[in-house]
Each structure stands twice: as C-alpha cells, then as structure tokens.
C-alpha cells in the first residue's frame, strides 16, 4: 500500500485486505462467463474504418 502512495493513517491494511478479497471473489465469478471466450482483441480495427 505504501508503494501505491496509500500511506495515510486512514488506510487499515486488514480492512483493505478484507475488501480486496471480497472484490476478487466477486470478480472470479466472471470466470464461468468467460470460459468460452477467447479474450479481447484490441488490435482489431473497427469495421467503421472500412466505410
């Protein structure tokens, strides 16, 4: 946290860790949705370029 600039006394490492754990758990529920996808393709040109 200190390396991220979050060194204010308001930040309690235990509370932050618990919150992050909950958010990671929520994010992990996306794995089921994404198991059949092949990832974003940020290099693909939008079709509107062809217009």
């Amino acid at each position, binding site marked *: 946290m200190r390396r991220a600039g979050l060194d204010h006394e308001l930040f309690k490492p235990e509370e932050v860790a618990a919150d992050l754990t909950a*958010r990671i758990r929520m994010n992990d529920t996306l794995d089921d949705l994404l198991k059949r996808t092949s990832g974003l393709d940020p290099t693909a040109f939008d079709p509107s370029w062809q217009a």
Partner: protein
Amino acid sequence: MSLSVQQAARALRSGEVTSRQLTNQALADIAALDGSLESFVLVDRTGSLAAAERADHYLASGGAVGPLAGIPVAIKDIIHMGGHPTRCGSPAYPEHPADRDATVVTRLREAGAVIVGKTTAHELACGVYTPPTTNPWDTDRVPGGSSGGSGAAVAAGLVPIALGSDTGGSIRIPAALCGIVGLKPTYGRVSRAGVEPLSWSLDHIGPLTATVADAAVTLDIIAGSDPADPTASQLPVPEHGSMLGAGVEGLRLGVLGGTPVEPMQPAVEDAFNLAVDQLVDLGAKIVRLEIPELAHTLAAEFGIVAPEAAAYHRNLIRASPDLIDPGIRALLVAGLLLPAVHYLKALEARRVIAEAIRREFQANSLAALLTPTLPATAALKDQEEFDYNGVIESVTYSYVRTTAPFNLSGLPALSVPCGLDPAGLPIGLQIAGRPFNESMILRIGAAYEAATDWSRRKPPIHTDGKAA
C-alpha cells in the same frame, strides 16, 4: 412550475407568459420548497434572470428561437457551468469556478434554455442515496442517485428539465424513485466534454423530465458529435419527438425475467406486470425471455468502475482520503491495488453481456426490452439492505442490477412512471432499445404514458401544492 416544456413553450410564444415570469416563479418555488428538499447546491439568480431577459427579447422579436427558449432548467453538479464551481458532491473539490461550460450546457444555452442552478449529486457521482436531498414523495426516503438532486427537483416541479449522468443507473434510479421520466441515451449519443467522469467507459449524460416529450426535445438539443469529445458519435441526430404519437401496435417487446430482474418487491412485480398488460392492450406483441449472462452484471460493472474511477481520482485518494466517504474510498483503493487482470476480465465480460443482449434483440426481432427500472421502491435514508422474502441484498446492488446491463452494453434506456406501491412510493418501467434508436424507446414510453396517468401523479411536496 408545473407546466411541461411543450406547455411552457406555447405560453411563451403566445405571449401569455414571459421567461422572466417563469424564471422568477422557478426561483420562488426553489426558495419555498428546496429548504426541505435540498435538491439544489447552487441557484444562479443573476445569471438566470439575465438569460430570461435575453430569451424574452428574442421571443418578442418574433424571429426563430430555440425549442427551449425561455424555459428554466437545472444541471447536475458534476457538469461544468462557466463561472461557478463544480463540487461533485465532494468536500474535496475546489471552490474555484469552472472556466467554461460543458458542451451540453453550451447547447442548452444556445437553445435558449435558462439555467437556474445546479443540482445535488451523490459524492463523486458514485452512489444511490444523494444526501442530503429528500425524496418529495416521502421526506424520510432517498431520491436515488447519483443524480438525486435532479430527480427531486423535477419531481417537485421546481424545473421541468434537469440533466443528470448515468454510470450504472444514476439517471434512471432517481427517475424511478421520484416518479418522473429519465433517459440514458446510447453511449456516444451525448458529449461528455466538461463533465467530471466517474467511469469513462460507462458514463452517459441525459435528461430527467416530467414527460417523455420533454425528454425527446432535450435529447434533440444535447445530442450530437463534438470535437471536444472523441467518444461522441458522428451519427446524425434525428428529431426524437417525431414518432411519439405512433403507438406500439405490432411492436415486439421483450419482457426480461429471471436474473437480474428477480428478486423484486411484490408491488413492483404487480405494477410491472400490469404495465406489460397495458402495452399488450395497446397492440404490442410480448416475448418473454431470460438472458443468463446478465447474472454477471454487478461483477462486470464494479470490475470496471473501480479501476476507472481510481485512475481518474488517483491523486485525490492519495492526498485527501479523509475527504472521501469510506465506501467510495474503499472502491478507489481497490481500483488502485487490484491487478489489471480483474479489469480486463470485467471488460471482456462486458462484451459478452452486450453480445447476449444483441443476440436476444436479433433472435426475437425486438423493438425494445422491458424490465422494472428497479426491483424496489425508495429506501429509507438510513437503510442499507432490502429483504426480498429472506433474500438480503444491499440497497446499492438492488438499484444497480437492473439498470447497469444497459451501461455495460451502451444501449439506450428510458424509465417512465408505472405505479405506486402501497406506501405511495413511485415505481418505474424501464424500456431499453437498440443502439442510437432512442426514438423507438421514447415512442413506446409516450404510448404508455398517454394510456395511463402515472406521469400526472404529483408528490406531496410539489409546486402545485407547495407542501414542504
């Protein structure tokens, strides 16, 4: 002011009333009622009366005037208004005035609108409570958020139009809870230049209004390309009100069931089912469907909001965390610390969700998709959770799960009033459409509005009754 925009515009053009009179009335109504509502954070008396004088001059000249000439409007206080501070509902924001208007404010001014002030936003536009604003239907309850000041101001009749922003439902939530119309346009339909972001890939700007026709005319004015916002679409802007009287005969409407619409309060379910029946009576064809991918709405939404908001507010969270609400602070800290893979997964999930909605529109030849705007009515100001017959859910998640699918997909979505619960609290009907087809959802909303009287119901705190 209890006149709709169309009524006020007719009265102004006929000389029956002047903009100065309308503006003075709005200022007097705000003075009389906003002490208890707290829907405004700034009232620009001097600027609005000067704008009213200009509008009256143009109207008296008999020349061409903009469609909002002389009409009082308000804007959410995350939208820059030159010469006035943008506070974003946050004590951390500087007091110095914005040096220029947001594009949407410029467009309102060019259309002749009289901007009477700025409305309360939930802190950093990141919340659904909007303290200290009160819901005009029940002073113990929230107006919704984050555009809660705009919702309360329009519902109480202080102004007929107020602009809001919508990242996960922040226009439609207060519209539904305050019993008015709220329109989140398609992503890219309205410029965001000069608007403080929350989550740039999900943020939308749109109107909260007393009627569907007022939402249409406001969208006509604020929509369109903008060199100052590269995400603003180049597509031409149609006249959104041109099809308002076309009805719904023969239109195929999807009725979304399952997750994320369920669970919901029984009164919401009853009102929604009745609204669907009324649309059937008007000639619509109903297709009942479920979209299982929408079960992941909240994970995708918050997986995107946290890192994008943290990226924008990175200096604020490091320098002044004590000036940020603890819940929002936790979101921003998570956005700074979580690995990028979580953001990328959420972005990918968003694409899957958008594709799933598109699949249903295409497979069923839908003109629009219907849901209750929210599964619950207005929460008490200190309420943290809803209890759906034993299923406990936070107020925030409840209010976002039905609206956020259309932020993730970027599709246009409209909320219109469709009932009151046994406590007399408003219920909203959400109508979501195809990209850049706001005209269709406005047409459906107008047909429903004309066939029912929900939009004509007024809350206990209203300029008509002036109870406060």
